[in-house]
């Protein structure tokens, strides 16, 4: 009742404008970078640039079916620094000029008096346009930037000065279809004029239209600065001001109209004679295609606008127009181009993409994050260590730590792909650290480190003066185990695998073991320790279990030189790749470390379906052991159960280590008979002597 009357009476029907929102194309930042490096250097001079805006577009959200107006965009492209005359403007766009000021430091950027800069820009626009009557600088803008070229980050802030009318413009009614007041033939004429009227632009920023004196359905047009001449003698209701509208919003038009109206008000107020009783006809041009009643119904809008009273046309009106940031605050914006420009980021993305494509194209179920998130500890940075590290990188593994006590020797580089001749000079660089550095060179995104220390071995007594050092080394190794998820045993002696085997079992790590003969290799995973093995599942053996229970028949005829340093050169990469792929298959299996190994063919007589889900990850089987023979180019899958008296993984050994700690290990290192007594293996020995001798898988390194 009274309130609604009050509303309509007091709320002024203000004409409102959608501010420009900037869109910067990445090419602009590339050009700014080049300009800064090659031309500007430390200069902070203002540079002329240009930008463009187009007729606003709305997109239909196909999910909701609603039309969404895309905002009132001003686009700055890679051509911004060129003279607009040398650039072919984008179709349906208005080119506008601006000034760029780039600051050398973030402090300069922050501290510059922005209000003063803005006011100066507005004053210049006023002087160039509203004092001379030439409207070509009506849409000038200001851009301040700071380019952090080390981080590929660009801080920037746009200002689109608009002169604020006081009192503000008001409207009569709401925006309505222009076709209600201008016949389709008139709209066609206007469309044609807009498209032929730009100087540097592909369309005119504003124009005037009136019905032709001879044919009221035909329309005549003129540029904006002809307002007084063109409209002299034309009654107010037949004068139309048309501008391509960058807004697609149904009730708000774009920012450029503000300065167009100011221009008319200040430069042509006598002809215009704008007042509530003599409003101005405005057409917000929104047609991209020639309007036609059949194929392209006109979309342009129309309204009558006026100022309630004429402002003082001798005073410069205040200007507004700093762009808000996406948080809706008056503040700068930031572009982060590191993903495009930083070579490290590019390498990172390329590695990930390769793997993602593998997943997307072939194996949708592949959990890549699980692989890349697995922290890998490589004990040994020789031939096997180098190849394992490279294959892990191929899978996107980001953390690789290497341990080796050796230095790079002259025989290494040809077989060990992470070393070069230079690494062998002056006694050789430490292998682990050198390999880690090389990994980072190959792919900077990797977190690789190398540690140089010796892994103590049972049966290799520690001299009293070295006990402290050994204790430290063991503590270091224990810490490394705690920090990693998977451990690769890639050392050059059988005994050095014992301590890691015990640690791996005690700490429940994934243990992948790899050893080479002359033309045969073993790749295996260790089973979990007994205390964590789920009930009902067969516990798989470790490297030492298999000394005893290894299927002797397949190996009897193999002669492996225990001191062997000679292997066929292709063997190490085959074995290493197999080892990494075994880890990845294990990681993809739902039971992980407890994944069952496929039963061996012929064992127990009954057929087992190894295609069943039980045995397979998305990548297939997760065998316990693989033994490969280059002489026959075949690989055998072997499943071996754990041995209850194993010196490496039996609960007796692990519990002794857990309860006694380093002193127990020291006993094992110093006393040759200790482990066999502990496990009761000495009793078995007399029976099993032959079997124990028969198996020996070993020795990766070439330079022993």
């Amino acid at each position, binding site marked *: 009742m009274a309130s609604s009357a009050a509303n309509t009476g007091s709320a002024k029907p203000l004409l409102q404008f959608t501010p420009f929102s900037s*869109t*910067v194309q990445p090419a602009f930042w590339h050009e700014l970078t080049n300009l800064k490096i090659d031309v500007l250097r430390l200069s902070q001079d203002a540079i002329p640039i240009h930008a463009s805006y187009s007729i606003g577009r709305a997109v239909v959200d196909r999910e909701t079916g609603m039309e969404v107006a895309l905002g009132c965009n001003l686009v700055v492209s890679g051509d911004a620094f060129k003279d607009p005359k040398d650039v072919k403007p*984008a*179709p349906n766009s208005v080119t506008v000029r601006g000034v760029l000021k780039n600051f050398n430091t973030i402090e300069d950027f922050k501290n510059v008096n922005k209000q003063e800069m803005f006011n100066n820009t507005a004053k210049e626009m006023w002087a160039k346009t509203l004092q001379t009557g030439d409207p070509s600088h009506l849409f000038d803008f200001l851009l301040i930037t700071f380019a952090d070229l080390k981080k590929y980050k660009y801080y920037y802030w746009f200002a689109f000065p608009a002169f604020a009318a006081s009192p503000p413009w008001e409207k009569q009614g709401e925006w309505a279809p222009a076709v209600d007041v201008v016949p389709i033939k008139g709209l066609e004429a206007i469309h044609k004029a807009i498209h032929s009227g730009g100087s540097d632009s592909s369309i005119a920023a504003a124009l005037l239209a009136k019905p032709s004196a001879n044919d009221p359905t035909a329309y005549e047009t003129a540029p904006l600065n002809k307002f007084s001449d063109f409209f002299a003698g034309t009654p107010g209701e037949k004068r139309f001001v048309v501008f391509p509208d960058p807004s697609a919003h149904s009730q708000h038009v774009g920012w450029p109209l503000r300065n167009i109206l100011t221009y008319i008000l200040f430069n042509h107020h006598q002809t215009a004679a704008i007042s509530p009783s003599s409003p101005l006809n405005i057409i917000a041009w929104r047609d991209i295609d020639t309007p036609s009643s059949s194929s392209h119904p006109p979309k342009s809008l129309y309204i009558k606008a006026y100022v309630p009273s004429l402002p003082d046309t001798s005073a410069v009106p205040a200007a507004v127009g700093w762009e808000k940031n996406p948080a809706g605050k008056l*503040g*700068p914006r*930031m572009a982060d181009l590191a993903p*495009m420009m930083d070579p490290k980021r*590019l390498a990172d993305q390329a590695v990930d993409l390769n793997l993602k494509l593998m997943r*997307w194209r072939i194996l949708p179920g592949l959990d890549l994050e699980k692989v890349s998130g697995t922290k890998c500890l490589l004990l040994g940075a020789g031939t096997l260590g180098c190849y394992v590290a490279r294959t892990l990188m191929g899978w996107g593994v980001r953390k690789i730590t290497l341990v080796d006590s050796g230095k790079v020797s002259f025989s290494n580089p040809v077989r060990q792909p992470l070393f070069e001749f230079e690494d062998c000079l002056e006694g050789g660089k430490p292998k682990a650290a050198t390999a880690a550095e090389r990994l980072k060179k190959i792919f900077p995104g990797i977190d690789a480190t190398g540690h140089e220390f010796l892994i103590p071995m049972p049966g290799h007594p520690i001299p009293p003066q070295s006990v402290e050092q050994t204790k430290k080394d063991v503590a270091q190794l224990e810490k490394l185990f705690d920090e990693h998820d998977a451990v690769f045993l890639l050392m050059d002696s059988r005994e050095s695998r014992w301590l890691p085997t015990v640690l791996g079992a005690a700490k429940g790590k994934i243990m992948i073991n790899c050893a080479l003969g002359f033309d045969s290799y073993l790749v295996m995973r260790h089973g979990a320790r007994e205390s964590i093995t789920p009930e009902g599942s067969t516990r798989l053996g470790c490297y030492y279990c298999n000394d005893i229970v290894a299927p002797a028949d397949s190996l009897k005829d193999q002669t492996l030189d225990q001191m062997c340093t000679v292997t066929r050169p292709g063997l190490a990469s085959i074995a290493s790749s197999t080892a990494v792929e075994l880890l990845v298959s294990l990681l993809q299996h739902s039971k992980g470390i407890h994944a069952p190994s496929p039963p061996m063919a012929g064992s127990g007589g009954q057929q087992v379906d190894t295609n069943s889900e039980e045995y397979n990850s998305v990548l297939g089987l997760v065998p316990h052991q693989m033994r490969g023979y280059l002489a026959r180019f075949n690989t055998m899958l072997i499943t071996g159960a754990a041995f209850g008296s194993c010196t490496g993984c039996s609960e007796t050994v692990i519990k002794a280590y857990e309860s006694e700690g380093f002193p127990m290990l020291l006993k094992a290192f110093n006393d040759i008979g200790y482990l066999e007594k502990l496990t009761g293996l000495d009793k078995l020995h007399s029976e099993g002597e032959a079997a124990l001798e028969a198996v020996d898988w070993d020795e990766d390194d070439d330079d022993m």
Partner: protein
Amino acid sequence: MKAPSVLSRDEFNLAAEGFVRGSQRGTTRELDLRSTITDGWSWKKHSSFTHLCYLHRSRRTALVPEHDKETEYQDDMEDQIQSEFDASEAVVPELRVVTMQQYVAWSATYQLPGFYFTMHDASGTPVPLETIYRSAFFQKSRSMIAPPETTGIPAIFDRTQRDQSRLGGGDNAQFPVLAQGDHPVLGTPCWVFHPCETSAAIREILDELVGDGWTGSEGDLVRWLETWFMVLSSVVDLRL
């Protein structure tokens, strides 16, 4: 003669120039391509090697809100400007808009035009791949995903689904595959649809349209390129 399944660089240049001229004139086409697909393309030339050319246009769309990400701002600078209330400023909530730079350039490897693109937000920051395939440009491809189990990856990125759709004989039978590559003229990193799978589809369509009547005239070449756009638009929404 039947229509070719590949185009030489010169043929591509002719076709593209004719295509741009036609789209500017608004020529009626034989193929029913929506004008929004053919609109706004410009023909760009390498600054020194002028036979290296490509089509370019820029297209924007609003981002699906769930993938809005706040970027960092320099908050300490916000109070430098007094925010005076401006009654004439319309308060319109800002949409997250992504811009897709679309390029059609000739690939020497495939002897075919390839569709190259980059996507960035208003600041010029490239958007991650996840945002790309959740943008409206790929809405159509997204809808082809079987809802359960799948990781939400559109069929264009997924060979298994692609193969299924081909077996099904749907109209999206020929899916190009997305890859990362360099723009053949600009040398900048881009996303690209591998053109290898498009040529069979184009040939099939053109065989039906022109049969043995292919002469290799500019008109034929433009028609060839329009067919290429038609095949492409089954994957990327070019009407946006």
